[in-house]
């Protein structure tokens, strides 16, 4: 167990290191000059050189990487080229938005996805199952940004025109400031983010549950005379949910790194929006910070998933 954890953490650190190298290399191999971009188009070569020196960009690449790496070990991701705020503080200020968005959406998609999956698996090929399939395929085919725009169109523009002031068009209110405002601002983004995942989860649950219901021990439970509901929930769902847990961990891990599209469409000041802004601004330290944090969430989620797997399924041994 400890060895397993140690091995996974070591591999995770390796992955993070590789990603940091990849991001770093990407920005230095690229034929562009952040100093020139920051100094402005009309800046004299002297100004550009000054900016370059101030940002430490005149040092050799390896030295720069070394500074970056030593900072990283101390939890210091450096300073933004633009706002001169520390990357750490930028990330910390954006994190609550992304966490609110991700966790709220996760609740919606897990509940609805598993429910739909169970419904359609309990009556395969029934009308319920068929409509669920339509829902699933629509969800899988729907680009997130399109769904977000549709929701804004109907629940903001159209509703507004007809005198219903249900939702704002975008923005964010912290929970601590106004719980209702927080909910109001996040409901449409939650639905947007949840729909695609709900489709994946209902498909996952359905498939896995059907597979489980074909097993011998389920037949035994049925032949013992247990009620169908009891068979489904007590015996079937328990093992059928293992793949759902796996997917859940990975999805939450990925989204915590920033739900880029959803945040952009709804103007939520989360990590995803920060990422798009810093990419447009060529703000290297912030980009590296976000990429690393996102990757760290994914790596962490994978480890948690493996642990959960072992708890749920006693056959899995962590070796």
């Amino acid at each position, binding site marked *: 167990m400890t060895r*397993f954890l140690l*091995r996974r953490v070591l591999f995770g650190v390796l992955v993070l290191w590789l990603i940091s190298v990849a991001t770093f290399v990407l920005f230095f191999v690229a034929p562009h000059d952040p100093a020139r971009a920051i100094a402005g188009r009309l800046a004299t070569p002297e100004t550009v050189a000054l900016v370059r020196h101030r940002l430490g960009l005149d040092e050799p690449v390896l030295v720069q990487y070394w500074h970056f790496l030593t900072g990283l070990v101390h939890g210091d991701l450096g300073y933004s080229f633009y706002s001169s705020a520390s990357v750490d503080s930028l990330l910390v200020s954006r994190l609550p938005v992304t966490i609110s968005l991700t966790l709220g959406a996760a609740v919606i998609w897990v509940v609805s996805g598993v429910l739909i999956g169970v419904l359609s698996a309990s009556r395969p090929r029934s009308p319920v199952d068929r409509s669920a399939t339509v829902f699933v395929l629509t969800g899988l085919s729907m680009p997130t940004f399109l769904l977000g725009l549709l929701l804004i169109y109907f629940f903001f523009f159209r509703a507004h025109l007809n005198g219903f002031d249900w939702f704002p068009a975008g923005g964010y209110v912290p929970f601590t400031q106004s719980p209702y405002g927080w909910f109001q601002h996040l409901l449409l983004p939650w639905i947007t983010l949840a729909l695609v995942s709900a489709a994946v989860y209902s498909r996952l649950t359905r498939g896995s549950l059907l597979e489980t219901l074909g097993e011998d021990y389920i037949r035994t439970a049925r032949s013992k005379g247990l009620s169908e509901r009891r068979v489904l929930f007590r015996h079937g769902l328990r093992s059928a949910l293992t793949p759902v847990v796996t997917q859940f961990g990975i999805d939450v891990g990925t989204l915590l790194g920033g739900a880029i599209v959803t945040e952009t469409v709804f103007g939520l000041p989360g990590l995803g929006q920060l990422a798009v802004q810093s990419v447009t601004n060529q703000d290297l330290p912030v980009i590296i910070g976000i990429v690393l944090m996102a990757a760290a969430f994914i790596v962490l989620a994978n480890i948690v998933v493996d642990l959960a797997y072992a708890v749920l399924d006693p056959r899995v041994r962590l070796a």
Partner: protein
Amino acid sequence: MSVPLLEVRDVVKHFPVRSGTLIRRQVGSVHAVDRVSLSVQRGETFGLVGETGCGKSTLARCVTGLHPVTSGHVLIDGEEITGLGRRAMRPYRRQLQMVFQDPYGSLNPRRHVGAIIGDPFAINRVAGGADRRRQVQELMELVGLNPEHYNRFPAEFSGGQRQRIGVARALALHPSLVICDEPVSALDVSVQAQIINLLEDLQAEFGLTSVFIAHDLSVVRHVSDRVGVMYLGKLVETADTHELYAGPRHPYTAALLSAATPPDPDLADRSERVILAGDVPSPIDPPSGCRFHPRCPRAQAVCAVDEPVLTGAPDAPPSHQWACHFPLAPGERLT
């Protein structure tokens, strides 16, 4: 005695058992085949029997070069073939072919029969185009398949027919030695006889030499000139077929024989049946001394210490050898 067509000398095959987290290291090995020697003369059929997991299939794969041997030598016509690369091995492969156990697994389900039987020609770059097709269809006819089924897929054939396809593939390049690895054990009993008869006919027709592996003594008795008995990676007894069946010397052979289904159940004396105690021990950590001693009714203290070597006796023909400290006397029954 002339040079045997196949000679196996002290062949050892261990499969490493690895464990470890970051650095995987070998913690043990499966002693699948341990210092086995045997030889097969041209034109002879050698039967190899033993329980599942005794190493007989592994030995076959060592002989055909599918598994590299851990140590020891395999000689074809007196020439060493162990450790030869794929290219150097080619001329020998044409002489040495194999019929596999599972007629379902040994035929690629996504390729039609013509392509499967044509593989030996394609791989060895002999006969192409229409010529290959003609030869493949001749082979199909030879093994009792309808040549018009050239374009069908394995799933469209029964188990017995599939094994005929496997036989046709093995015979394509007219090998001198065919190794049949339990060719009938996956088939229905009613089909087994057909395939065995086919193999016997083809052996006679082409003057084939063969090694016939089975876990069923009655099948081996039917087809073999000589028989070797394996237990946990060791060859424990070898003799001419009639000699072995008439007077087994090794207690394990005797137990196997007593357990074989008698030809006529009414005549069989059920009390003669010897039931061996316990299960086959793990080949990862085989018993010391004689590997059979934990289950042997005749075992004594020395059996756990000294490993018996394969020897004969003055009262037996020279081809009859066994590895036992306390062999049965000729005609003696195991109790």
